[in-house]
C-alpha cells in the first residue's frame, strides 16, 4: 500500500493533469478499440481518434506547432486518405474472429511483462524536478523547430525525401503488380 501511494506521491490535481488523464484515457481506449474492431472502416476512424488525442498531448506539452501539424497531417490528411483507400477497395471486409489460443496468452503475458518492466523503470528513476519554463518561449517554437531542422538536422531532412520517394514508388509498384 505504502509502495503504491509513493508511486503516485507528489501528485497534484490541476487543470493540466485532469486534461492529461482525459486525453490519456481517450488515446488508450481508441487504440484498444482499434485492435478490437473487425471492420476496417471502424479501425480507420478509431486511429483518427488516436491522432487527435495525441495532438491534445502535444498542446499540453507546449508544442503548439507540432499539435497543429499533427491535426492537419495525421488526423486530417492521413485518416482521410485511409478512408478513401478503404472506400475505393473492398470496404465490407470483416476480419475473422480469432480464438484466444495458447499463443495469444503468451503474447498477452509478454506484453504485460514489458509494460510492468517499463512502469518499474520509469517509477524507480529519480527524475529531476520539472522546470516551470519550457525550453523555449511558446510563440518561438516554430522558429526553434525550423532552425533545428535546417541547421543541425539538414542531412536527415534531405534524406527523408529519398525515403518518401521510395515509399511512394514502392506502394505504386506493389499495387500495380496485382494487375
Amino acid at each position: 500500500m505504502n509502495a503504491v501511494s509513493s508511486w503516485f506521491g507528489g501528485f497534484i490535481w490541476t487543470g493540466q493533469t485532469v486534461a492529461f488523464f482525459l486525453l490519456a484515457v481517450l488515446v488508450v481506449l481508441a487504440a484498444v478499440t482499434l485492435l478490437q474492431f473487425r471492420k476496417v472502416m471502424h479501425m480507420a476512424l478509431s486511429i483518427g481518434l488516436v491522432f487527435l488525442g495525441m495532438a491534445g498531448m502535444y498542446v499540453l506539452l507546449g508544442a503548439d506547432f507540432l499539435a497543429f501539424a499533427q491535426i492537419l497531417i495525421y488526423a486530417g490528411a492521413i485518416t482521410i486518405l485511409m478512408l478513401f483507400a478503404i472506400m475505393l477497395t473492398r470496404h465490407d471486409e470483416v476480419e475473422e474472429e480469432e480464438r484466444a489460443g495458447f499463443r495469444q496468452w503468451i503474447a498477452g503475458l509478454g506484453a504485460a511483462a514489458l509494460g510492468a518492466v517499463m512502469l518499474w523503470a520509469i517509477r524507480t528513476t529519480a527524475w529531476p524536478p520539472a522546470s516551470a519554463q519550457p525550453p523555449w518561449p511558446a510563440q518561438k517554437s516554430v522558429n526553434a523547430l525550423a532552425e533545428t531542422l535546417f541547421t543541425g538536422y539538414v542531412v536527415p531532412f534531405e534524406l527523408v525525401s529519398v525515403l518518401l520517394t521510395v515509399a511512394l514508388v514502392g506502394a505504386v509498384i506493389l499495387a500495380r503488380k496485382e494487375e
Partner: protein
Amino acid sequence: MTTVLQGIAFADAWRVMAPEMVLTAAGFLLMLIDAALPPAAKRAGVSTGVALIALLVAGVLALRRFGQTAALGPGSYLLDDYALVFKLLFMGITLLILLLSLDDHGRAEGARGEYTYLLLFATVGAMVMASSADLVTLFVGLEILSVSSYVLVGLRRSSKSAEGAMKYLVIGAIASACVLFGMSYIYGVTGTTHLAEAGYTLFQAWDSYRGIVVLGLLLMLAGFSVKISVVPFHMWAPDAYEGAPTPITAFLAAASKAAGFAMLVRVFLYAFASHFPEWGGLWVGLAAVTMVAGNLLAIVQRNVKRMLAYSSIGQAGYLLVPFAVLTGAYHGGNLYQDMSALYFYLAAYALMTAGAFAVLTVVAKHARSEDVDAFTGLFRRSPLLAGAMAVFLVAMAGMPLTSGFAGKFFIALGAINTGYYWLAGLMFLTSVMAFAYYFGLVRRMYLQEPYGPAESWRTPAAAALVVVVALVGTIGLGVAPGVMMHSLPGLNWFGQ
C-alpha cells in the same frame, strides 16, 4: 538571443557524402529514364548500365577519400574510414547483385527500372547507416534501406513473395518502432541525438538513470537484432528470403546484414562504450545462441534458399563474436583488431553468399525448383557451377584455404585473446555442424545421378561473371588473407 545559422556549403557536403549523392542522383535519373523509354529499350538493360556506371563512379569517389575525416551538420554525418570500408562493401555487393539480376528477367518482368533504382536507394540507405553519428540520421537511413527491401522482396508474382514481403514488413516495422522507442529514451536522458555527445552524457548519467538507459538500450538492441536476424529475432528471415527474387535474397543476406552491423557497432561503440562490461555479456549470449540455433535449424531444410537463410542466421552469430568480445575487454588495439576481423569476415561472407545465390539462380531457372533435388547430379550438368557451389559451401562451413576459414580464424583468435575460450570452442563445434549439411549438398551434386535427362546447363554470361568474381575472392582471401588483414588495422577507423 541571436543565433548564428550555419549553412552547409555544397563543397563540404560533396566531400563527405559524394558517393551517396551520385547514387541518389542516379536513382532519380533512372526513374525519369524509366518513364521516358519505350518498353523495348528497357529490356536492353539500359537501367542496369546506368546503375553500374553510377556505382563505379561512387566507388572511385569513396576510394579517394580514404584517410580523411570530416563531419557534416555538427557531427551528425561522418566521413571516416569505418564508414568508407562499409560503403565500398555495400557498393561491391550491389554491383554483383545488379549483374546477377541481368538474367533474371523472368522473375520481375515489367519492373526492371523499378528494381534497379530501388536497389540503388537501398544502397544509399545502407551507406547512410554506416556514416551517420546521429540517431535521427541513422533512423532515416535504416528506414530507406528497410522500405526499399520490403518492396524488393514483394516484386515476384507469387503468393510466397507476397507472404515473405508481408512478414518482413510487419516484423520490420515493429523492429523500427522498437529502435525509435529506445532512441527516444536515450534522447530523453541525454537531451541530444548525437551519438558521441550522448555517450559522454551517458557515462555520467548511467548510475542515476540506469533503469531508463538500460530499457532504451534493450529496445534498440532488440530492433537491431531483427535487422541482422539474430536468434530469437530471426523469424522473418527464412520466409522473406524464400519469397524474394533470388538476387534480392543475396542482397538481404549480404548488404542488409552488413549495414545492420555497421549501424550496431557505431551506435553501441559511440553511445554505450563506457559501460560495456556491465551489459556486454548480452552480446556474448546472443552470439552463442544464434550460432547454435542457426546451424541446427539449417540441417532440416529441404529448400536450398531456406537452408542458406538459416545458414546466414548462423553466420550472423559468428559476426557478432568480434563485437561481443570487444565488450568484454575494450581498449584501443583490441578495437582495431576486432573491427578488422569483423570486416574481413563480412567481406568474405558477402562474396560467398553472392556466389552461392548466383549458382542457385542459374540452377533454379533450369530446374524450375529451389529444392535440394534440383542440385542432385549438378556435376554432370555443369561442372563449373557444381565446383563453384562446392567451394562456396565449404567456405561457409570454414574449410582451410578458403576465406571462410581465414575469417573464422581471425574471429576465434580475437575471442581467445580476450579469454572467451568457450566461445571459440563453440564456433568450432557449430562449424562441424555446418559441415554436416553443406557436405550433404556437395555429395548430392557430385555423387548422385541427376533426375531426368542429363542435359548440360548453360550459365548466362553475367551470372558466370559473378560466380567467377566470388570464386576468385573466396579462394584469394583464403590463400592470402594477409593482403587484406594487414592493411585493415592500419586504417584511420574512427578518425582519432
